[in-house]
């Protein structure tokens, strides 16, 4: 079957959507290879299809058989994202893999929420530590009229606030933040490794 311009742009649109979805959790070269392979599949199916009066219907049937781009992208994420993140160890890739698992499984969602809390807490601590040299008077333990009001970074202080132990708070936040980040990232990698190994065990029965 020879495609019209409309048919051609329908295929381009499908591949574009697939590429966009895959880019959220896979490396560029992996994405390019996957899209090229799916395109090769589509082109061959088109070539084998008998010319039909309604090209649109024929193309829809063909693309339906492959599956919607977002579902195909989800299948790629389930198969590849966890393993890639474990082998590379990169924070961003691990986060993307956990996000992909969170969308697909209940366990993934629960673990994803827990890890997100860990990363956010670590980032907050590190932010407080980083803020001290920039806003030296706003980071520390806050007191109003001798009454404890809180600790950390407060951009807008209420009148009469006294801030003490700023450098101690910075040091503690830097240590706790780094420790939390390390522990959370370790947890993420361990979880992703377990997901990959579980898949292997499921495949080989041991």
């Amino acid at each position: 079957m020879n495609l019209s311009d409309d048919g051609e742009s329908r295929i381009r649109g499908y591949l574009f959507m697939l590429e966009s979805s895959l880019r959220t959790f896979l490396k560029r070269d992996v994405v390019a290879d996957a899209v090229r392979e799916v395109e090769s599949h589509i082109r061959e199916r088109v070539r084998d299809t008998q010319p039909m009066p309604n090209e649109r219907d024929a193309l829809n049937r063909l693309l339906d058989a492959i599956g919607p781009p977002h579902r195909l992208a989800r299948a790629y994420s389930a198969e590849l994202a966890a393993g890639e993140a474990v082998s590379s160890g990169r924070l961003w890739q691990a986060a993307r893999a956990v996000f992909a698992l969170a969308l697909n499984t209940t366990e993934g969602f629960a673990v994803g929420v827990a890890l997100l809390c860990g990363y956010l807490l670590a980032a907050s601590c590190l932010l407080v530590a980083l803020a001290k040299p920039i806003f030296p008077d706003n980071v520390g333990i806050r007191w109003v009229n001798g009454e404890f009001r809180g600790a950390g970074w407060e951009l807008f202080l209420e009148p009469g606030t006294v801030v003490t132990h700023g450098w101690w708070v910075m040091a503690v936040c830097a240590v706790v933040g780094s420790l939390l980040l390390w522990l959370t990232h370790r947890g993420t990698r361990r979880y992703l490794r377990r997901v990959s190994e579980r898949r292997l065990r499921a495949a080989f029965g041991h």
Partner: protein
Amino acid sequence: MTVSTDSWTEQMRRGGLELAILLAVAPGTRYGLEIIRHLQELTDLVVTEGTIYPILGRLTRDGWLQAEWQASAAHPRKYYRLTSQGRRRLRLMVDEWRTFAAKIDRLVDAADKGATHEPL
């Protein structure tokens, strides 16, 4: 009842698909669509054609398949073949499969023999 049976069949299908893909490339190199056609000819394991490609990607990354792009007359195709590691794994998987199937068959036979009503 139908829903849980469908889910069970789906899980079995998924589990079998990886083994089926490895078996499809065991005799020699094949590209994605060729694997799909082969599986469609002999089984009903491939419901959505696209699902084959992510599995092929993972099997390649794990070192059980080797992939190579080859230019053909119409358009390039990505050919897959089993690596020696993949072939060892496949042998193990086939053994596991046969053992498992034999055990279930024995259970089915035992259930048939002991059936007080109609056989399974």
